[in-house]
């Protein structure tokens, strides 16, 4: 007996063709390239103070001097970073004390409070350094979980709609690295979510300011978030000597091999694209040798310090002093300063040092 098929071959083909044509039409709608930094800056700048990003995009390439972050005042675009009066919010805050949560809160408060970064309904991304799943946080190879957890709480308190925490480890899977680092537990306790950066979503974008690296495949959410907080841990690194804020941004791109020739310049180029509005350097524990992976407690130094600034270059530059170095010693810091991404010179910025003994 011959069974009749539910629909004829012709009907099936017709249906398929219609659906395919529909999909093709839908696919032809011009894709808003929302990953371009212009839009990020534009959306980000409306509700809150994002001086460097706004200035940077307007003044692309022509006058790098003008793009120097000018502290919390968005109108200020002097060619030299004008130190704010010592009474106002700090340009860079450094806190010392035994409690990482208090250190973090005090540092952000000194910059003007989380409310100066987060408006109600913000979609926030926090990018810690979760480089491997090898060691728990005591080994100082991944960012302190309490610092990250506190930042999540502060963002939510300031009205953020959602706070996601993400990194792409080079050793182990994200799931295991999130867990071993203690960050997953801290973030979830604070009400944030751990996010896995999935490969199908990466997008190729141009780096308008890039000197050497001009295109890169990047996780687009990083560029689209209302606020990106960069939370590196200060630690040793074989070629750049230290991995800090700018270097931490390598976690948001797919192909890290392409970074390794001319590393310092390319890190600076990448920084010009990503431009986190806030950098918090975790120096509660620092790794002084055998970084970035670590594994020997003898290389770990307890400094009980947190550094925060809107200026990623200044934050990095200050962090080098914890290792007895200066910003000029770490290739990507002068390279980033050169691109107008911030100030390396710590002598004429408003640094507030707070002791929470």
């Amino acid at each position: 007996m011959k069974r009749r098929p539910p629909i004829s071959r012709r009907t099936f083909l017709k249906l398929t063709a219609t659906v395919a044509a529909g999909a093709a039409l839908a696919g032809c709608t011009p894709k808003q390239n929302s990953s371009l930094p212009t839009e990020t800056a534009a959306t980000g700048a409306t509700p809150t103070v994002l001086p460097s990003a706004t200035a940077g995009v307007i003044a692309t390439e022509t006058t790098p001097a003008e793009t120097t972050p000018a502290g919390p005042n968005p109108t200020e675009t002097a060619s030299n970073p004008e130190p704010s009066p010592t009474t106002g919010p700090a340009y860079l805050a450094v806190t010392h004390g035994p409690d990482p949560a208090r250190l973090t809160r005090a540092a952000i408060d000194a910059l003007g409070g989380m409310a100066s970064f987060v408006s109600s309904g913000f979609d926030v991304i926090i990018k810690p350094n979760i480089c491997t799943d090898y060691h728990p946080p005591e080994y100082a190879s991944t960012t302190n979980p309490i610092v990250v957890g506190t930042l999540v709480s502060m963002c939510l308190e300031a009205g953020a709609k959602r706070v996601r925490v993400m990194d792409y480890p080079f050793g182990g899977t994200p799931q295991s690295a999130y867990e071993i680092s203690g960050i997953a537990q801290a973030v979830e306790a604070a009400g944030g979510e751990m996010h896995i950066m999935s490969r199908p979503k990466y997008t190729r974008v141009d780096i308008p300011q890039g000197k050497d690296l001009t295109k890169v495949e990047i996780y687009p959410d990083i560029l689209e978030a209302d606020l990106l907080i960069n939370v590196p841990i200060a630690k040793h690194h074989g070629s750049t000597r230290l991995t800090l804020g700018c270097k931490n941004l390598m976690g948001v791109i797919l192909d890290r091999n392409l970074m390794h020739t001319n590393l310092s310049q390319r890190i600076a180029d990448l920084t010009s694209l990503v431009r986190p509005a806030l950098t918090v350097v975790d120096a509660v524990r620092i790794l002084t040798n055998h970084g970035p992976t670590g594994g020997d407690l003898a290389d770990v130094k307890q400094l009980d310090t947190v550094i925060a600034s809107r200026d990623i270059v200044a934050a990095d530059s200050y962090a080098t002093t914890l290792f007895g170095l200066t910003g000029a010693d770490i290739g990507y810091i002068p390279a980033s300063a050169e691109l107008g991404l911030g100030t390396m010179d710590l002598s004429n910025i408003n640094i507030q040092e707070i002791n929470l003994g």
Partner: protein
Amino acid sequence: MSWNGWRRVRQSVQILFFAFYIYLIFAVVQQRVAPPLASPNIFFRLDPLSAIGAMLASRQWIPKLGLALATIGLTIIIGRVWCGWICPLGSLLEWVSFRKARKRAVSISPRWRLVKYFLLATSLAAALFGGLTLLVLDPIAIFTRTLTTAILPAIFYAVNSIETALYHLNFLIPVLDGFEGLVRGTVLPVEQPAFTQSLAIAALFFGLIALNLLAHRFWCRYLCPLGALLGLLSKVSLFRPLIGSACTECTRCAIVCKPGAVDTTPANFHIMPSECTVCLDCLVNCKPADISFKFSLKPAPRQEFDLSRRQALGALTTGAAGVLLLGTDLRLRQDNPWRIRPPGVTDEDTFLSACLRCSQCMKICPTAALQPALTEAGLAGLWTPLVVPRVGYCDYGCTACGQVCPSGAIPRLPLEEKRLAVIGKASIDHNRCLPWASGVPCIVCEEMCPTPQKSIRLEEAQVVDSSGQTSTVQRPSVLRDLCIGCGICEHDCPLEGVAAIRVYNA
């Protein structure tokens, strides 16, 4: 309950076991932690062919595989329940049925069934002499290996490709993000796995399914060595389907029997316990309703396809000769530099006589570093796991392969011990390494090296580049005594093609 009710129970149990098997497959996709519910290797631990083979070959009682006694016990009580109720490959082969298969099967002589007994005898003889190569034909291993190396990667590839395409449609992004949040890292691995020889492995599997065109459950009838083992045990099973005196020899039972277990020879009309998969279809379809499971202590009669003494000796000789031939293959005997075994494996012969070729380690390895071997250990080591660092590195924070290995061929090491287990040694090719050969700065191998003291040392050197400029670069050298051969240096070496730092078998 009526026989029809029991048949429904069987079908449900079959679906449940199949679903459970697939769940376990997905649950341990590239994850370091064992899934909730049972241990992921439960099907292998219940598999008596793997258990007997591994215990014979490694000459020891392997407690983990002792669970196979449960299957043996069950078979001795009511026959090949494993084949008809549990075995996921058997279920699949039962569900894939072709209309013309029954007619075609009639023209296949039942004598072909002896192939599976011959395979079984050869496998066990080889195991007795320390060779487990034929376990590549274990049904659970075939299914798991195919899912691991071919079907799962293909599914992941399809999902990733579709997502990549759909991410271009802005209005779909929230939907895709939601989907990603649900499945990425749990069901879908973060890194797309890829395996060597996936095509050959898939060809074997789909070939077996295609054989169903010739007869229902062709593999189970004629080829499966595990089925043969359980068939032999079923010959003495306590309960077995017996045809009563009301039989009119209408052959309805023979027509519905998927494995073709009814011997319809007049005067000897009976159901062969060794071929019966306890599917109960005959009991339901018997017109006089006179087939039932009855207690019997009498061993089942000899069949024409049972191995004769001569054939059994032939199988034994084949097994032994095979072990000798494979064992003297130069590729196995010489120290192959690319034969890098999973962490904790020290002796090649010991490993080969315990590895079940089950590929569970390849499935769970979070970096897909473990790849099926072709001839790196001679044909004797076909489809055993090899570390291929350029594909994936051995994660310094991971012990998954040792945890999931059913036979202990990869030892289950605590993390501290696994971190000291040397799987190979890295060495640098100065003619290719960027700082050594071209004066180009690069320290990726040192950066990636996970050992606490870094097994790669950087030394500064003055170099003159092509334009005559002098500069300082850092040159890497391996500290051999510290290197554990995890291979992350080779994996991440930015040099195109073959890495300038490679891990060799040590």
